[in-house]
């Protein structure tokens, strides 16, 4: 971290805040005392402990023992501990695990605001839809090998996983004209084509050049999940991802 090993830093909690395994807490201690004990190691004042408890919505349960915490509350406490040192970099492993819908929304907003403050927020997750909403930069690792290192938008655009819906009275003519290597055309209802592997611009031009009327031409961007599956379908047996939002 910053050119030094983590252990060599005089104040490691201010360099990196990590949520690696949520249950890294003695169940017999209260949330407040858990954070207070960690804070003591760095000389972090009690006010900061109160602050991160508030930030993670734990103020009301701060003096309850962790034993009785739900998975989501444990997760929030883990995040509170990661934020304790006000670190420049955050590493969160599956932060939305166990959170209720409101908690998921909360963490999405929190991560975005932390990144907006100029921090680097590294998040690893298998929840594609969540990553699509949160992350900006994407790193995909499969079987220990780096598969992709790009932005989320580029990744989805370049994946070729998006489809274009075309409605035309001359469906079979258009389908014939569009047929090319790498282009995949399917029809579920007569007069409607789902085209994969080319873009709306190309389809529109082809249709115009041949005087084929189009009633509808709708590009559907692929979801991150589809793009991911596309990338890893053949390559990886046990896919794993790491996605990060960097300000």
């Amino acid at each position, binding site marked *: 971290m910053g050119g030094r090993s*983590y*252990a060599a*830093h*005089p*104040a*490691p*909690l*201010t360099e990196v805040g*990590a949520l*690696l*395994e949520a*249950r*890294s*807490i*003695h*169940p*017999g*201690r*209260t949330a407040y*005392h*858990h954070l*207070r*004990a*960690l*804070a*003591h*190691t*760095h*000389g*972090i*004042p009690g*006010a900061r402990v109160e602050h991160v408890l508030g930030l993670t919505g734990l103020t009301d349960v701060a003096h309850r023992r962790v034993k009785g915490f739900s998975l989501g509350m444990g997760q929030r406490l883990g995040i509170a*501990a990661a934020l304790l*040192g006000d670190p420049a970099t955050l590493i969160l492993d599956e932060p939305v695990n166990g959170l209720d819908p409101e908690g998921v929304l909360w963490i999405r907003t929190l991560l975005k605001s932390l990144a907006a403050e100029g921090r680097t927020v590294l998040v690893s997750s298998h929840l594609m839809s969540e990553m699509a909403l949160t992350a900006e930069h994407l790193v995909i690792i499969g079987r220990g090998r780096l598969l992709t290192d790009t932005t989320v938008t580029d990744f989805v655009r370049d994946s070729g996983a998006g489809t274009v819906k075309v409605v035309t009275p001359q469906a079979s003519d258009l389908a014939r004209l569009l047929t090319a290597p790498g282009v995949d055309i399917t029809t579920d209802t007569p007069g409607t084509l789902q085209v994969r592997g080319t873009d709306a611009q190309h389809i529109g031009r082809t249709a115009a050049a041949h005087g084929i009327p189009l009633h509808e031409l709708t590009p559907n961007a692929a979801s991150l999940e589809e793009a991911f599956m596309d990338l890893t379908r053949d390559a990886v047996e046990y896919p794993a991802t790491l996605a990060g939002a960097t300000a």
Partner: protein
Amino acid sequence: MTTATLPYRVTPARVLRSEWHKLWTLRSTWANLIITSALTAAMGAGLGAAYDGTGEGRMDTVLFVLLGTQFAQINLGVLGILATAGEYSTGQIRATMTAVPRRLPVLWSKAAVLAATALPLTLATNLLTFPLAQSFLTGTDQSASLGDPGVLRALTGNAAGLTLLAVLALGIGALARSVPMAIGAYIGLIMILPEILAMLPYESVDDAVRYFPGKALEALTTAQPMPGTASPGTALLAMLLWTTATLAVAATVLRRRDV
């Protein structure tokens, strides 16, 4: 606020404060210490009240009055084991070592905090238990006062020995990383093994066993040194060495092995 102007950084004193905070924010610590003290005092009073002047006549008076510290040996040992092995079984160790990635200050602080807790507690308990038990023993052959030769030394020596045993157990806990395993090793190796070895008919084994932690603690607890036991000074030194050696091994393993 002055703390806000100080930079956040890890210092040995702060790790010590953190470990102190951790020890005292667990209910099990309070329960353990209260039970330890109460059992010693109650056993002392009970033995004193029940004593009829026969049987244990040859037993050292301090050893007799402090028989309840047998429980303290286990209790304080468990407290030490919980401080280290307990962190592994709960996962707390990951949080602890993330905050103090150099690791070793954590072990030293835990040992210091435990010693600073166990020594005053056992000393106060012993100084209370002795007069309490003696109030029942007036006129018997076990009658003695705090001023009698060796009595204060034995009461203090017992407290020091119990403290060293607790820290030794803390080291075993750091090595075993599992509470049941550490308690098993502690009771088996420290409390039972010397008793078994002492029964072997070899002189050299007998000579060695008197320097084992359990036997050395017994020697420390006697007002009048008994034949065949170590002298109080040697016994204390032996216990110091056992505890230091265990902590040193624990420190080496802590540095090398992944958490």
